[in-house]
């Protein structure tokens, strides 16, 4: 089972993930329309790029925007989850070994203590996000089963990974389950709201260009995100 999951299935998941997200990104750009969106994308590359970079950059900074500062609980939950969700898949020692074995690509591995911390942080972040969905009426009204499904798909690799890591229960079983959920996430990403892995950057860049090119970026200091 392990050989299959860590071998051909792993390669397939990576392909679906990368090709799928690339296609989403290409579709997004191809679907932009200067007149319908009312942004002269191609005419002002300088202000456009600057606007896009600012729009993405400030939102990647914890407490970097008015929005993050206004909602500290959400900010903490968001960054706890996303730090782990980006760094753990790439730089956890076991992951780098599997990646090297399957593809030959060697990434540096992070110390185990940091990996443990980030994994727990991500689980706590997901729990906080779920709590928000239940507790806050303004989030509850927006929430559907689909939103919990996405949280679950995100939580599953972390939880199973932690169980395996502490050898709580049958290690081989939990490891296989962990790989299964990790690959499920990779395969689902291009087809679900997880596509925000790339579309976050596209959408933020678009609004940044909108402000940078049309809505005042050329006039002054630029938007105070």
């Amino acid at each position: 089972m392990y050989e299959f999951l860590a071998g051909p299935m792993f390669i397939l998941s990576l392909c679906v993930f990368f090709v799928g997200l690339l296609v989403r990104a290409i579709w997004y750009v191809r679907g932009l329309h200067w007149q319908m969106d009312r942004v002269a994308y191609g005419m002002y590359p300088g202000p456009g790029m600057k606007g896009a970079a600012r729009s993405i950059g400030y939102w990647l900074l914890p407490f970097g925007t008015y929005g993050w500062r206004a909602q500290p609980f959400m900010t903490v939950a968001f960054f706890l989850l996303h730090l782990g969700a980006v760094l753990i898949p790439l730089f956890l020692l076991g992951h780098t070994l599997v990646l090297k074995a399957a593809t030959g690509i060697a990434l540096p591995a992070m110390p185990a203590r940091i990996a443990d911390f980030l994994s727990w942080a991500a689980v706590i972040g997901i729990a906080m996000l779920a709590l928000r969905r239940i507790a806050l009426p303004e989030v509850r009204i927006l929430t559907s089963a689909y939103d919990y499904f996405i949280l679950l798909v995100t939580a599953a690799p972390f939880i199973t990974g932690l169980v395996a890591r502490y050898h709580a229960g049958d290690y081989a079983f939990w490891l296989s389950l962990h790989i299964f959920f990790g690959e499920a996430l990779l395969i689902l990403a291009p087809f679900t709201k997880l596509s925000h892995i790339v579309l976050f950057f596209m959408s933020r860049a678009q609004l940044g260009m909108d402000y940078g090119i049309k809505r005042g970026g050329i006039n002054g200091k630029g938007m105070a995100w």
Partner: protein
Amino acid sequence: MPEGTFCNRTPIQTEKALKRLLEDTGGKAYYQEMKALEVDRDLLWGTIQKTLKSRLRTWLGICAHCGMCADSCFLYRISKRNPRQVPAYKIQSTLGEIVRRKGNVDNAFMHMAMETAWAKCTCCNRCGLYCPHGIDMGVMFGYLRGLLYQQGFVPWELKIGAGMHRVYRAQMDVTDKDFVETFEWMVEEYEEDYPGLTVPVDKQEADILYTVNAREVKHYPEDLAEAAILFHLAGEDWTVPSSGWEQTSLAMFAGDWEACKLQVQSVYGAMERLKPKRMVGTECGHAHRATVVEGPYWAGRPDGRPPVRSIHYVEWLAEALRTGKLRIDPEKRIRVPVTIQDSCNYIRNHGLKEITREIISHIVAPGYFREMSPNREHNYCCGGGGGFNGIGLYRPQRNQALITKRDQLLATGAEMVIAPCHNCWDAIRDLVEEFHVPIKWSFLKPLLIKMVQVPEHLRPENS
């Protein structure tokens, strides 16, 4: 009854049709007919398939349902935090639902969508600043308004407003002749006080082409005189066009994109005809947004700019003060606590936040200026933007919407608020009346007239 005689899918094209709809006072018959107006579902879905591009599709699709937009919306905050006022909910339950159902929606749904689009969103675009994904729900509501207008589900006043632009190329029944005559008459009134004061009409290649808001012609003609006086005192080479002088666009509020295009083309036509160095527009927010920011795209200009460089009145004024074309008598500067209303349409949506503060530094004595909180691009809508001020059907909601600005103003402790935007000015006037708030409100021009130094060679002989 698929379509009514007053309420239907056909835009107002003629003066006769316009007058007939106006005679239906308050839109009584219009709204009655709307209850039976059929939804042309094929048209609705066809339009969506043609016009809903990846930006809007992605916004609808990737909304994480996180609710971070809730607190950004002043209408949510003043409705006792009613979850139905969360921006993401408002757009998902209207535009999102129409798309999910492939246009298969009924009359009752369209009524709900109309109320949401015009009474629960002023298209202030503030929520877009607070969404991690950069989802600008104001932009999406603008799009939804277009779909609703096409189906005939639009508030009575805005159907008329869009019709006015189609018939008169102005938001009111002000003809080109009315405009020129009113401007000339107002200037005559002040000739004695300002010798040599004129209004040059259709002058070729002037430095400045001045465009206005038809309300000024119809209801506030003093504003025209004040503009003329300030250009005169600044020694500007300026002109007004005999046609293409109207900068506003109720068609934009209505979602009538065809009328939007017709309107801005009339202004751009004046620019091309008279070849001025630049255009200066009056103290209006949405007029600037329509003609300078969005208009080029309606007119199909790939560079996204009007034919000549076009600036807001505050930009001209700041420049005139900066370069000394206009000089302020320091003794006459404002010496009461004063604040400024940042208009969504040219502060958040055109980056002029520092320009207005530069003006403040010239016209307010040190120590008297009070910032509103929040301010600049994070300021709240006045409460009457996006057409909200003018819709009788939603007057109670509009009056409630003024609470945010009332409380912001009271918190500054200011005795006066400067509002260089017609919509904001109206909303503040209404909130003063509605809530008996002890605060004065003003455009910039009348304040400037009182404090600007008249150069010796421009003074009347007997003074």
